[in-house]
């Protein structure tokens, strides 16, 4: 009954997006064999995933494409495997996420999948889970703790790497010269920190002539991206490129540039995420490149849990391969975007 229920909800809440996402590309783990973990190392007993209850804690409201696709993918996979899934949504409040996970534990979750809102501050949860020897897989963001002791594995992108790749694209698009601006994500968020660091490091390394003249937060929100860009193009009319740390802010920048009467492509825009709207932007010529951050964690997460509960070895750090969208291939790849 449990799984039927969760499927129904899935339908109701995410509607079309849920069914479309099936076309999307599955996550692939990048090569290389990092350290691994087994249930013996971790402590705990083998169970059959099909009989287990999995608790899933989502960090933000399912109101942006990334979170929608992420939650839908987890729910779909649980449904496919007939696993009972308990869900909770922290609505961007970290203290609520801590309570959420603890509630999931007390409700009898045997396994946990967590999309953390923040990397630090997980001690109380990890302790509660350790008391009951509940295996934890974190997705899309890491928890700062010891793998295979405090949690089993992390599955997700390398945000620093994403920043670096965005820098590569920016250099490519602008020829490695000129002034560029960064639309930062929400302050205090480690995605912001890492995407910024990766980008800046790679620019310094590959295109020292390029100058980052402007860094303001757009809080991952389209409207803010638009407003900040509007100010930017007044004060720095010679800007050659804008790096937006997510698609939404990038799309806001596009609207702002359009409003200021700039031709599409006059200012190069590189963004991260890979939502359909952004990829469409490439097709339209307003965005130059999008680095993907793949949200479809369901299959890989459950595969990992399945293997782990059977006693097999699983990787501690499953960094996934993110694709990217540029130029003419973008149109063909539009179907892969979420």
């Amino acid at each position, binding site marked *: 009954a449990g799984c039927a229920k969760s499927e129904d909800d899935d339908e109701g809440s995410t509607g079309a997006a849920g069914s479309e996402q099936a076309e999307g590309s599955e996550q692939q783990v990048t090569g290389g064999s990092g350290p691994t973990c087994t249930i013996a190392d971790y402590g705990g007993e083998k169970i059959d995933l099909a009989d287990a209850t999995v608790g899933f804690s989502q960090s933000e409201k399912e*109101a942006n*494409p990334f979170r*929608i696709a992420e939650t839908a993918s987890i729910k779909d996979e649980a449904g496919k495997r007939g696993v009972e899934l308990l869900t909770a949504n922290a609505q961007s409040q970290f203290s609520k996420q801590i309570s959420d996970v603890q509630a999931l534990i007390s409700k009898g979750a045997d396994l946990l999948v967590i999309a953390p809102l923040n990397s630090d501050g997980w001690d109380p949860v990890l302790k509660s889970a350790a008391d009951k020897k509940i295996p934890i897989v974190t997705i899309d963001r890491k928890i700062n703790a010891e793998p295979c002791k405090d949690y089993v594995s992390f599955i997700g992108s390398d945000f620093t790497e994403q920043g670096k790749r965005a820098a590569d694209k920016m250099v490519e698009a602008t020829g490695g010269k000129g002034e560029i601006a960064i639309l930062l994500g929400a302050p205090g968020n480690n995605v912001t920190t890492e995407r910024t660091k990766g980008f800046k490091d790679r620019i310094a390394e590959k295109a020292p002539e390029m100058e980052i003249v402007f860094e*303001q937060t757009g809080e991952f929100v389209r*409207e803010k991206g*638009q*407003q900040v860009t509007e100010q930017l193009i007044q*004060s720095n009319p010679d800007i050659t490129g804008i790096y937006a740390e997510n698609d939404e802010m990038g799309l806001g920048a596009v*609207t702002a540039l359009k409003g200021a009467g700039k031709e599409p492509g006059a200012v190069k825009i590189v963004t991260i995420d890979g939502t359909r709207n952004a990829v469409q932007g490439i097709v339209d010529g307003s965005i130059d490149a999008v680095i993907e951050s793949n949200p479809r964690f369901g299959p890989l997460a459950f595969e990992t849990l399945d293997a782990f509960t059977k006693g097999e070895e699983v990787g501690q750090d499953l960094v996934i391969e993110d694709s990217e969208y540029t130029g003419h291939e973008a149109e063909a790849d539009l179907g892969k975007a979420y």
Partner: protein
Amino acid sequence: MADLTLRRALPADRERVLRWLQEYGVYLGVALLLLVNIAFTPNFLSAENFRTQAVQVAPVVIVALGMALAIGSEGVDLSVGSVMALSTSLLALYMGYGPWVALIVAVVGGAAVGLVNGSLIAFIGVQPIVATLALMVGARGLALVLLPQLEDIRDPGMATLGSGEFAGVPYVVLIAAALAVVVGFVVRRTTFGRQLLAIGDSRPAARLAGLPVRRVLIVVYVASGVLAAVAGFLATARLSASDPTSLGNLMELSAITAVVVGGTPLTGGRVRIGGTVAGAVLIQLLTATLIKHDLEPSWTQIAQAVVIILAVYAARERGKR
């Protein structure tokens, strides 16, 4: 309490200066910021730039107008940001029937929230801050239930409204200016305006004088809801998208700041529309200055805090408690 206000009289000329500052301090602040920017910000003195600032501040002004009414009645409306979100959701849902129908639906939605706010306050006697807090939570939730995620709006009419202009002035700005004139007129010249001020100043006296206290309060919150919905409409048009998650976030605080910085006391009984517009412009210019000079978020916030305190200090009602 006026009989016993604890006040110190100041030497007459200093008193005069302070009174002047109280009345016009916010305009002085705007002028100062303009001068600083003209001197130190590259490319500040351009029509394009002023246009940008005006366009960005327009929704805040519109919301602040409604907020000024609520504050004048000794209340406050925390639900305005969520009403903007609700408005944008309704717009997305009804855009199929054309932008005007959608606008009407959105305005009706805003009015409905205002009606609930007003009824809770006027009939049940719930304190405005609590009543509107509840609707702030509820209306945002409703917005997300109606439209779970951001949706692009590709209606050409909306696009024109968002970026078009008349005689060089963007529609968005024209609408905000027109609304400010209307609200200013209502406050100064109508029976409703006078009654609103009396109710904000002394509720029991207004009641005993036979004023339609409940009706006035309900109209105030409905007006605030409607104005917020219109602001949501304009913001949506400008963004060419409906984003119920983030649209209007913290708008209540910006609007309250604009109103108070503009010299309207939170204790009610007084509404300054010109000041409110200037207050919104002051905050807008400040934000723009900080962004254009690429300050870090930490310093941006600290600077805003300091300026708000200074502005409110200048505009404070001397003597009134």
